[in-house]
């Protein structure tokens, strides 16, 4: 038994809520998450990838379940089966599309004119960006509809097709403006997502403005090169603070006072470790060859014709590329971000915990199949919701 802090919340009647509260608590353990991800990876490989839907579900159940809002754990009600069925539906669309794209591309590459090739590729990217936006929105809708607190569902209203079109239009606008429209794109898409997010019948609202973030964004981009990308962490912290401060749920206001240093403490050790591991990885793969050259004195460099044919490279590659990175990422990034977010989240204002009413609208039936097939993951739990 590990949790004492919330023992008091079981008292049946609530005293009036103080104006500022830290309602979220994260009780996940890095080791448990890492072990779960390890098991998932192995099972996914054994099943040629088909386990991934259940793998995702297990991780989400663990993460959602590890977050308590006002002492009540969140619940993830999605299932692997739903994700799998969604994937099958999507497959029926994507397989013919994939064949058309592949064959068309191949045909044009060998026989077509430059104009034909370029217009084919432009069409492809337009379709891709539209589907990408569509998929992101659908994934978010699925996750929210499968997120439950005190028996009340979260929900994502709004239109995925419209979101996809918006996304496409904003990407094109960003290209035309050489990236200057990116802050506008971020704000516009966030507003659409958050303002369509519900807890029961209660509606979230996001009152963000492009010009509030524009100059900081520009500074971040200009400095990114000179600071080896560290300015991005500074901008991230600012964005989370800003977006949280502009978010409301009825009369409730939010704040997430994270600082640059909080993100630096999470991302910099991770990046350093990944750099060290990459160097080690290259050394382990090239090591035996270098060793051979030293032993034989023969400077001929025999790069293996078929890397999978070399058992040593296969083993190092398997552990280094497939097994380790997801475990490290979940333990050093996901887990710590969840802890950080929970420790920082504040709610301001009177909250009646009993007053949320279920939205009668049926929860989305299908899974986030398209998102899965296009491989766009969603964020975790309530940090998406806010």
């Amino acid at each position, binding site marked *: *038994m590990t949790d004492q802090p919330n023992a008091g919340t079981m008292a049946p009647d609530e005293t009036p809520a103080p104006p500022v509260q830290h309602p979220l608590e994260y009780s996940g353990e890095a080791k448990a998450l890492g072990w779960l991800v390890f098991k998932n990876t192995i099972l996914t490989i054994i099943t040629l990838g088909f386990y*991934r839907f259940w793998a995702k579900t297990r991780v989400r159940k663990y993460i959602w*379940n590890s977050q308590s809002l006002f002492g009540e754990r969140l619940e993830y*009600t999605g299932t692997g089966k739903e994700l799998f069925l969604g994937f099958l539906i999507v497959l029926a669309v994507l397989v013919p599309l*994939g064949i058309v794209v592949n064959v068309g591309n191949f045909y044009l590459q060998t026989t077509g004119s430059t104009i034909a090739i370029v217009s084919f590729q432009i069409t492809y990217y337009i379709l891709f960006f539209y589907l990408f936006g569509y998929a992101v929105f659908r994934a978010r809708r699925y996750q929210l509809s499968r997120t439950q*607190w*005190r*028996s*009340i569902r979260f929900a994502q209203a709004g239109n995925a097709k419209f979101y996809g079109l918006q996304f496409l239009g904003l990407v094109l606008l960003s290209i035309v403006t050489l990236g200057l429209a990116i802050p506008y794109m971020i704000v516009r898409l966030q507003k659409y997502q958050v303002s369509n997010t519900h807890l029961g019948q209660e509606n979230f609202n996001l009152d963000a403005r492009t010009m509030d973030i524009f100059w900081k964004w520009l500074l971040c981009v200009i400095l990114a090169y000179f600071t080896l990308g560290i300015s991005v962490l500074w901008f991230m912290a600012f964005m989370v603070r800003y977006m949280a401060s502009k978010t409301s749920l009825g009369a409730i206001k939010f704040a997430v006072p994270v600082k640059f240093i909080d993100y630096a403490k999470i991302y910099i050790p991770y990046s350093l470790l990944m750099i060290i591991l990459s160097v080690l990885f290259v050394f382990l793969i090239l090591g035996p060859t270098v060793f051979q050259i030293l032993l034989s004195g023969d400077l001929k460099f025999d790069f293996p014709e078929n890397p999978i044919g070399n*058992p040593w490279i296969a083993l190092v590659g398997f552990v280094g590329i497939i097994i380790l990175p997801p475990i490290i990422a979940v333990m050093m990034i996901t887990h710590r971000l969840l802890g950080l977010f929970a420790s920082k989240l504040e709610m301001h204002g009177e909250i009646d915990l009993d007053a949320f009413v279920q939205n009668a609208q049926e929860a989305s039936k299908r899974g986030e199949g398209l998102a899965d097939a296009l491989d766009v993951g969603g964020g975790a739990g309530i940090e998406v919701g806010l």
Partner: protein
Amino acid sequence: MATQGWYFDGQTSARHAVTISLLPDRLDIHGIDTPDIKLAWPLKQLWWAQSPNADGKARLALQGDNAARLELEDPALIAAIRGSCPDIDKAGKDKGGRRKLVIILATTFVSVGLAIFAAAAILPNLLAPMMPASISQAMGKAAVEQVIDLVGALEKNPVKRCTAKSGHAAMTRFRDRLAAATDYSGPLKITVVNAKMINALAAPGGRLVVFKGFIEFANNPEEFAAVMAHELGHVIHRHPTKSMIRHIGLTGTLDLLLAGGGQGLLGTATGLMLRTAYSRDAEREADDAALHILKSANIKTTGLISVFRRFSKELPGLPDSLKLFSTHPLSTERAARLSKQVSESGTAAMPPADWKLIQEMCGPTKKEPK
């Protein structure tokens, strides 16, 4: 036994204190402050919306109602419920969900198997003969250029085509002799390339590429003819076109099915295994065709054996354990298979003068005596 717990009705977020009594066939749930809560949950329909946590809390739900929850804290009650419904740890939110899932999975695996089979075995044989000559020639041209670039990058030396006129004429005479022995009527173009690689290959549209390394490797015109007849066998069977179609089909299918992150490597490995399995069959077909072509052209077939024997001796092969990943059957295996069928009967593959011209196509040879 009656214990206290909490009930959420799925309509509002209110938390109701309730008493829970475990009966042989059901749970009776009664509101303490809310007398209108009077529920009887059949044990057979219970599932854990949240399995008992480390902190001892658990949430029960009823199949078919995905919102209402009963929260338990009493370890004795949780144990008693587990005792009364032995299947509760396996139950999901839908009734009979598992059986449906098994059916869906089985159907999927069968259709995936069929899709892969279609992409690997049916489509290439079906589409290759339908491919218009203009496209396969364009494909072949692109492939040959790609190979030349690749070899140049590997040998760190831009690779040139060997175009000496007299050598070219000798090669054309040799080519026509081989082609006349077959009923192949399509285009046939041999490109000799100034690279060290000991190899020759076939590309779509009747394109053959020979590397200077192989011309130097061949001890006599019969060994050269054996490998060229083998490559011509690939052309006759349209192997290059088929393998290109197979490659496109398999890559597309496997990428979609096994999409995502690390599994990409797995897809590549599966695709590679499937493709190489087919390519080994193709090699055997080409070997048989080579034997047939050489015999029809009245060329000594012993070159086939000696060249493969020497390949296996002088070029290190893969260990047996990795046979699956080899695109060609082991050279020793091929030599053994063919050895019963070759014979000394027949003439030389070409006049010595022609062989000399071909050997010197890329400039004077620097062949070391062995």
